[in-house]
């Protein structure tokens, strides 16, 4: 396996969200439109096989349940659809979900057991959806209090009950999304023991304001990491009472995942995935995973250079406007690609530049020496 990141260029516009199927041979991706495209891997490239066209406003989030092979999409049109593959026709069939929200849906994730999913929205609530056998449809139950603004991101705890939410009211919260009849009583955890629906198990700030863009439980579920628009990344561990906020010197991070219990990767407006590591008891920025090599300035003669300087009234060729990272614009989503939850080997990033890049986490330790910013 090569260490170099695998760059997939789709050239169909900015990518707003993406999700892979269980064995990573298929990809659901949205190019900031109301349609989700399904691609199948063929050799080194991706071939479009079908489209999920049912939403009538831009799709904001997509998630693919790995085992039950169902896709859930949500959109600014305030709807969510669960898509199932019809075995006979090989067509994706949509089922409308009753979210009961009056603002855009912003984010959706299947629970680890794939029997529930949660939809975040601008109507200051989270709709926790589950399938009601009696009525043969998906219904949603609202987590409302004490959310004060748009919910921007969600992450499920491995126990299938707890749900973390990052919110535009500058708070990250952990809720219970326990559904009677679906969930078994969860084992006590540092987050709490009695967990009826909508229990607030934790409420955290990042210190200097800003929307919470992304939340992620650690693989064990013992800790929660979240990133804010104030360029901070915060890790809280209720078991030990530890709260650490790292004030990063970079632009804000929009998405965060855990590689393992002591490594976190975050990416956002700096266009590169950044690694944070737990050293001893202290979390700290470690390295950018994008070597950001300057492209050699070839193909220009001295005459061209002087002409350019003249036409742009520059004293020297400015490199300020060049982005040297693989991604050429804001990364808005990172997702684990291969490995297990406690040991992610590869992860994928999608960005506004229309690229989807698969990075090798295992090259991190090997190449750290020359990767420092």
């Amino acid at each position, binding site marked *: 396996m090569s260490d170099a990141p695998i760059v997939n260029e789709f050239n169909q516009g900015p990518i707003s969200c993406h999700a892979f199927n269980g064995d990573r041979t298929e990809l659901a991706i949205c190019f900031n439109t109301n349609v989700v495209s399904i691609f199948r891997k063929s050799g080194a490239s991706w071939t479009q096989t079908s489209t999920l066209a049912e939403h009538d406003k831009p799709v904001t989030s997509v998630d693919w349940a790995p085992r039950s092979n169902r896709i859930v999409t949500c959109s600014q049109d305030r709807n969510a659809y669960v898509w199932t593959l019809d075995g006979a026709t090989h067509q994706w069939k949509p089922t409308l979900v009753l979210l009961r929200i009056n603002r855009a849906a912003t984010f959706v994730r299947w629970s680890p057991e794939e029997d529930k999913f949660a939809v975040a929205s601008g109507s200051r609530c989270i709709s926790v959806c589950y399938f009601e056998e009696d009525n043969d449809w998906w219904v949603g139950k609202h987590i409302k209090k004490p959310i*004060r*603004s748009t919910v921007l991101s969600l992450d499920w705890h491995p126990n299938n009950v707890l749900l973390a939410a990052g919110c535009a*009211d500058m708070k990250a919260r952990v809720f219970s999304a326990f559904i009677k009849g679906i969930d078994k009583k969860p084992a006590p955890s540092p987050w709490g023991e009695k967990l009826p629906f909508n229990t607030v198990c934790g409420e955290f700030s990042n210190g*200097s*304001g800003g929307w919470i863009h992304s939340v992620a439980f650690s693989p064990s579920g013992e800790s929660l990491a979240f990133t804010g628009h104030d*360029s*901070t990344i915060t890790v809280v561990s209720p078991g030990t009472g530890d709260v650490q906020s790292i*004030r*990063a010197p970079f*632009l804000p991070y929009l998405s965060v995942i855990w590689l393992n219990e002591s490594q976190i990767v975050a990416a956002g407006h700096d266009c590169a995935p950044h690694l944070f590591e737990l050293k001893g008891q202290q979390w700290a920025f470690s390295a950018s995973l994008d070597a950001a090599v300057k492209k050699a300035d070839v193909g220009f003669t001295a005459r061209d250079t002087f002409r350019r300087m003249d036409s742009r009234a520059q004293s020297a060729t400015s490199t300020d406007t060049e982005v040297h990272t693989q991604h050429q614009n804001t990364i808005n989503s990172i997702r684990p690609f291969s490995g297990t939850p406690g040991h992610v080997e590869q992860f994928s990033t999608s960005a506004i530049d229309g690229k989807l890049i698969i990075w090798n986490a295992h090259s991190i330790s090997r190449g750290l020496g020359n990767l420092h910013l």
Partner: protein
Amino acid sequence: MAFRKIDIDALEEDAFGEEEIDFQEIGELRPVSDVESEVNTRAQEVRSLLQRGNFSEALTAALQNPPYGAPYHAAKARNTQTVMDAAYQVKVTDMTQVAKSLSPEEQDVLMKYLYAGMAAPEHYSSGHLLYWHEKLTEVAGQGCIVRVITDRRTV
């Protein structure tokens, strides 16, 4: 031109307004007189440090526990003056080292005051502050500037 012309929260009874955000981020407000006396004590402390030539220490002291909240106009202006007094004493060649000696929190607070100073060019000459801005950004990165923008606790 604003993207949206209609205030969609106008009919919302329970909108998340400025006052509530400020309360959430700043917390309970203390009596104005308490804050003012604290700021004045600090101003004297900073002045005595400056007289002894401890510019770096004076700046660090000036950046502690800044007054946040709408009612403290006078205290804020006084504290900005204190921070500026200390910041102006630091020579351009020493700025990087002084900036590095500050904690990340203090760096963020200093950046807030640099912007506050540059917002009042009639009181503070921007030239020196622009040098400070350049040196501090080299040390604390763009994240420091982003935090000044997002933080509701303004100085």
